């Protein structure tokens, strides 16, 4: 910029910068918001934009990444009694009125010295009890006080496992209870991930990669034909493609559904509820890519291919060895565009894919939002996750987004 500018330009430039920064913040805000929601406790859409470290949680992310979420729920109205058993061991009597899952249980006899090591739920020494009792024998409680005192001096937390296998539940008995008068009982609740989010992510990535690759293959070859060859109806086809592309695919959902239903009867792997069918339907949207690549091809001097033809190259060799290496930047752009569009596409995928395990992430993430319960937090984590492959593809493709590839080949 060597043009001499008037002084007032400086202020206008500054104002433009301020505006741009403001605008950037504005468009970045929703992203920041959704990241924040994914770290917030609970599934609410309102709250701090920047979550406090003390209240933030990874639970939504655990669920999104396929891990169980364990929580401790305090069971109100519970009573814990410790009873002396033989050999200096202690038995624990727990009873509650308010939790239906158990009325009361008596633990095996355990050594109070073991219990003192208990620090957290997972590395606890479990004092298991595999029976529920309806009623606690009141005679057993006679000797309770000394045992209680013993336990109270030694153990901070005691974990009790009730039942076996899948039906087992763990209870944490914490003497550092808020009430201070008694031990608090917390039931561990395990929430398994409700949806196969990673599976969806993999589906998205798989479909997007294959689609983008096929779109590149199709659109470069057709763009080559449109840019370099002379044939009847070329302009009509080019314009026609553009016009047809103007109708959103949503309008044709019914047709697409019926079409793939029918295709599936003959070619099962291209039918409904298959990724093959979804990819095939995405291949229909390449008109804009053809236009983009055609425009780029036209900037490359045709004499390069003529020179290659004289050098003995077949049209295919001229295309592959000369034109394609020079078109890498536009191919990278088209790949990224196609990838983003595919990862973010919802309407067609939601119609073509039926099974929970076959969904793409964009479609699947909406499962978190059902009218009775909007699980904003879990949804946010899945949404951020779906941005991940796009970001990675973009970062990888960036090295191909270089200018000046054709420099020096022809006199400009």
């Amino acid at each position, binding site marked *: 910029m060597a043009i001499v500018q008037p002084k007032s330009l400086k202020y206008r430039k500054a104002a433009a910068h301020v505006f741009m920064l403001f605008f950037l913040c504005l468009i970045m805000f929703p992203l920041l918001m959704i990241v924040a929601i994914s770290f917030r406790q609970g599934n609410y859409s309102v709250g701090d934009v920047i979550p406090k470290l003390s209240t933030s949680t990874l639970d939504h992310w655990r669920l999104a990444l396929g891990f169980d979420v364990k929580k401790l729920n305090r069971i109100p109205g519970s009573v814990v009694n410790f009873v002396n058993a033989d050999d200096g061991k202690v038995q624990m009597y727990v009873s509650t009125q308010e939790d239906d899952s158990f009325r009361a249980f008596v633990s095996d006899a355990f050594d109070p010295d073991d219990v003192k090591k208990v620090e957290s739920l997972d590395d606890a020494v479990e004092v298991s009890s595999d029976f529920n009792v309806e009623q606690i024998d009141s005679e057993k409680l006679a000797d309770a006080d000394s045992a209680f005192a013993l336990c109270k001096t030694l153990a901070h937390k005691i974990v009790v496992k009730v039942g076996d296998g899948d039906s087992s539940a763990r209870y944490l008995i914490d003497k550092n209870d808020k009430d201070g008068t008694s031990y608090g009982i917390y039931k561990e609740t395990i929430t398994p991930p409700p949806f196969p989010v990673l599976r969806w992510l993999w589906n998205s990535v798989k479909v997007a990669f294959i689609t983008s690759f096929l779109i590149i293959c199709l659109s470069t070859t057709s763009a080559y034909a449109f840019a370099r060859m002379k044939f009847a109806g070329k302009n009509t086809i080019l314009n026609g493609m553009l016009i047809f592309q103007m109708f959103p695919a949503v309008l044709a959902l019914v047709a697409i559904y019926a079409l793939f239903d029918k295709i599936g009867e003959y070619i099962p792997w291209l039918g409904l509820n298959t990724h093959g069918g979804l990819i095939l339907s995405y291949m229909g949207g390449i008109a804009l890519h053809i236009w983009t690549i055609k425009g780029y091809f036209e900037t490359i*001097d045709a*004499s*390069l291919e*003529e*020179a*290659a*033809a*004289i*050098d*003995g*190259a077949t049209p295919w*060799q001229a295309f592959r*060895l*000369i034109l394609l*290496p*020079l078109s890498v930047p536009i191919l990278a752009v088209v790949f990224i565009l196609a990838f983003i569009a595919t990862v973010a596409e919802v309407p067609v995928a939601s119609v073509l894919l039926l099974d929970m395990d076959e969904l793409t992430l964009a479609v699947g993430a909406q499962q978190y939002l059902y009218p009775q319960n909007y699980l904003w937090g879990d949804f946010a984590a899945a949404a951020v996750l779906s941005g991940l492959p796009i970001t990675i593809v973009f970062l990888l493709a960036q090295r191909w987004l270089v200018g*000046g*590839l*054709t*420099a*020096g*080949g*022809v*006199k400009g």
Partner: protein
Amino acid sequence: MADVLLQKVRKNYNPALLKDTLRNINLDIKDGDFIVFVGPSGCGKSTLLRMIAGLEDITDGDLMIGGKRVNDVPPSQRNIGMVFQSYALYPHMTVFENMAFGLKLKKMDKEEIRRRVVQAADVLGLEAFLERKPKALSGGQRQRVAIGRCIVQNPSVFLFDEPLSNLDAALRVKMRLEIAKLHRELNATIIYVTHDQVEAMTLADKICVLSPLAMNPQTESNLEQFGAPLELYNHPVNKFVAGFIGSPKMNFLNGVIESVSEDKCVVKLSEGELITACVDARRAQVGDKVTLGVRPEHLVKADSDKADGGKITCKVSVTENLGAEFFVYMDCGSSEVGSDFTVKSDCELDVRPGDNMEVGIPSTACYLFDEEGKAFPRTAVYKRS
């Protein structure tokens, strides 16, 4: 090495419009000849070259290279090499790869490829640049790489499509000499398209002058003349060739034939001056309309004893002094094209715009054309000094 023979070649890009680009082109190019195609823009000279290369199909007629009809043979099998106006180097390949590309496609032995490329680079002075990409080369070097890419293929015919038009003046002179040298060394048939007079006159063994068919759609052929440079200069077959060959352009003056003899003809110009020309115009009648042509460099001072053909007087409009040459542009009432009349002189003339200047015309320097533009045979050729 091969002869190139064109017989009744016609090119029509759009058959629906019946507008030919080239019509009835007959050329017999001998092995080892340096042929230059010249003509104004749109005359089809590049098209003709591309047809020989096989980059355009031939609508009608035959093209023979080395005695074989190659109309339907793809470019790579015609054994030709072509240098493009835009160089058309492969930008993503090094100089070496550029030159080796065709040989690699032919699956030639790697050692042989290297030998040939290095040899060609040696001839063209490109050894130091073999690992560079075209981006890092100057215009002249790029052009040499483009030539080198042809040489390694060892073609029997070289085709050059305005190869020097993208270079600056000094480099153009240098490359022109190099191409002349190359022709001597390779002794190959070269067909060269240019619009540069100097390139055509200096390089060519024979020049082929083409005219745009759009200018005269009914004409039988737009190949105007095919011959040695000096033949075209001294004995153009028609007004088009006379006007095209030579720089500055030949002056044309309107007139009618006053008298005719075996080796002389007197022409009365439209302003009344009588000019004697050494031309055999016996096939014309007295009173026929003719055009008298005289080259700017052949005009002499009015008082010179060379001015035996006659004199005309014109008003000077612009003068240009180039140091070595002196141009006077004048308004002339008899002139056919507008009112331009140009004089080129070796020495400075003492004239100013607005002056009237008398110019002498040597009778041997005159060209005469009939109403259709066909030249009358000249009986003498003007010798300067």
